[in-house]
Every structure is written in C-alpha cells, then in structure tokens.
C-alpha cells in the first residue's frame, strides 16, 4: 500500500473515531436530565435521571405528611402522597420545564435543573 494511501486511511480512521466520541459526548449532554427536588424553596436533592437507579423514597413534610417519589427508567414522578388534592400525583412524570411536579400543600417541587448552572 503506498504511503499516501496509508496516511489518508489513518486520518480517516482518526476522524471517524473522533466523530463517534464527539457524538457520544454530545448526546450524553443532550440527554442529561438533571432534576431538583425542592422543599420550601430549598433544593434537597439534585439527581441525574440518566444514571439514577430505579427506586422509590418518601419525603416527609416538616408540617407532617409525606410524598413518595418514584424514579423509574429515567423518569421521575410523585407516586403517592397524603395531601388532600393529589395534584402532584395526577401531574404524572416530570416532562416539561414549564410544568413542574408541584405539591402545594407540602411545598414540594420536582423540576428540571438549569443546564447552565450545573
């Protein structure tokens, strides 16, 4: 194989590899799903849904009461609560920046975190 062809081949392979890595990194960033759980204005959990294990846990309200947060397949929702209206449960999984999951009676919010501030 002539030297020129070899060089072109090597460069092509390097460029290809770089493109694959770049795509991977880019996609990782685009897919990053950082969410915050906020109680009474204070961020009590910051979670990356792309790497969180499936699980449920309770968050107790300082005034009594609880909300059960469930993480499943990269989604997050409030699956149970003892608030009177259950609006937080009815909202379903967090899916939009303008529609956070909110439990007004317990002052609990699950929202997407600002990408920039991470």
């Amino acid at each position, binding site marked *: 194989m002539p030297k020129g062809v070899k060089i072109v081949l090597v460069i092509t392979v390097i460029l290809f590899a770089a493109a694959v890595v770049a795509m991977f990194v880019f996609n990782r960033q685009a897919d990053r799903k950082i969410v915050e759980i*906020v109680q*009474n*204005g*204070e*961020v009590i959990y910051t979670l990356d849904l792309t790497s969180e294990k499936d699980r449920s846990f309770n968050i107790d309200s300082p005034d009594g009461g609880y909300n059960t947060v469930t993480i499943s397949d990269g989604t997050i*929702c409030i699956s149970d609560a003892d608030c*009177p*209206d259950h609006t937080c449960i*009815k*909202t*379903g*999984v967090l*899916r*939009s*920046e*303008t*529609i*956070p999951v*909110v439990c*007004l009676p317990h*002052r609990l*919010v699950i*929202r997407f975190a*600002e990408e*920039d*501030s991470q």
Partner: protein
Amino acid sequence: MWGCSQQSPVKNASEAHTADLFAMDTYMTLKAYGDNAEKALTSATNRITELEGMLDVTSPSSDVYKLDNANGNALTVSPDTASIIAAGIEYGRLTDGDLDISIYPVLKEWGFTTGEYKVPDKQTIDSLLADVDYSRITVNGDSVTVPEDMQIDLGSLAKGYTSDAVMEIFREEGVKSAIVSLGGNVQAIGKKPDGSDWSVAVVNPFAPDTDMCIVEIDEKAVITSGNYERYFTDDEGNNYWHIIDPKDGCPADNGLVSVTIIGDRGIMCDALSTALFAAGTEKAVSYWQNDKGFDMILVTDEGQIMYTPELSGHFRNASNMPAEVISVA
C-alpha cells in the same frame, strides 16, 4: 401564602437566571437572561408579592377582601386592583357575561375555594346567582364600588395581570429573553437566547399526566383553562370542575374540556381562557372569528382538538386526538 424565593448566582450574560416562589395559591418559576436579569428577577418577585397582597380574597388586608366587606360603599384601592377590576368588567361585557368576577359566592358554595367540595342544591345556587352581575360594579379612577350583596374574586385575571406586570419589569430592566410560568400560565419575552422559539407544553385534559400539544412561541402568553385542573367526583362518579358557568352556576359543560389562549397580553389570555371555556365550542369559535386578536387551541369533550390557522407550523400535536384548523369565518 407566600413562602420563599430562590435565586441562582450571577455568572455571565448568556446564562439563565431563575427565581421561584409560592404565591397566589400556586408555584411560580421565572427565568431571565442577560446582564440585568438578576435585578429584574428581584424586582419581579417583589412585585408578585405586592400584587398578591392586594388581590388575595382571603386576606383581610387585601383590596379585594375590603371591597367584599365594604357594605356597598365606594373604596379607594390600588391602581392595580382598580385596573384588574375594570378589565374584568370589560371582558364580562365582551363575552356577554361568560366571564363574571362576581361568581365568587357560587364558587365558594361548591367548595372550590376551600377544598370542602359539595354539590349545592338548585335553590341555593339560584339565590346566589341573583347577586352575580359584574355590570353592577363601578370603577371610577381608583375608586371601586361592589354592591352590598355581591362579592368578587379576581382569580380569573390575577395571574395574567401579574405575568404582564413581570414582563413590564423585565422590559424596563432591558431583559431581551425571559420566560415565566405562574402555575402553568406561561408568558415570554423575545425568543430563547439561541434565537429559537420557546416550546410550551399544554396538558392533555383527558390524561393530565401527558401532553396534548407543544406550541412554539415568542413574545407571547400561553394560558390554559382546563376541567382537569381542580375538580371533584361525587358518589355517582360525576365530575365537577372549578370553572363555573355564570349563566347557571354549575361547572361549565358546553362542549369544551380545555381552552388555551395565546396572545400578547397575559390578562387577556387569562380572561378569555376562562370565559371561552364557559362559553363552549360554538361561541368560542365565533368570538375568535370576530376578534382574531389572539390564537387559541380548544379541546372538545369528544376529543377533538381545534386550533387557529396562525398556529400552523408552531403547533405540534403530542396526543392521539385528531386536530383540525378552525375556519377563519
């Protein structure tokens, strides 16, 4: 009512600055970009608290509470309160009473203000309806008179007026790119910093844990009234929701389950989303055909989406429901 506000640290001009707070019985998030964003957010949260103090019908120090307990005497209120009431009267007139800021006693009777829900008997509703009539309220400058036997609440306008007020502060501070969500009532300044439109999700009224559609907007308010937002179910499985038809004092059931209004002013979008929900499909369509100063997305109780033609290209159906464009005439 008003719990707390939180602000992110200043970093650079292209970065998002956010604030969030509980106010007006809801959760609000504010996001602004640019040099003065942080200052604008502080002024905005202060302004929201100030407005809440004037408008909270349950707080004895508010203008609205004082008007409701003034025994029919004229009271001088803040210019904000006076102009919201004037707007309420105007939208009442424009929608032939489909918006009525004096429906409050009926809403209370159903328990929507306290969460102690009940289905009132017809006699009770009728006797309360006798004193529901926005046209008997008078506004003269900052002097407002609410008749003795009447009570008002500005819940159908307050958040829209508030998001307008926040936009005004942002503009004064030179903010070119910002979006706020006041309990799902969205309003934006300009476009995103990258020049693209803002994407606003609207909830599917038949499955509130999913989206009905995404609308792309810039420099607009997007406000939805839906029957899924606050409702209760009786022993027989009937649902009763919080948007009361001023004509009969019962939850408005005129063919619509969700009305989204997209327009330049939050207060208009807020007023019309409530009024046109109560009005029902036909009246909503003809109101738009005669006005055309806004866009709208209706969802009928039969699962049909209807949207105005200007939204074509900015509307993405995210549901299984068919969507059709409303004819211009």
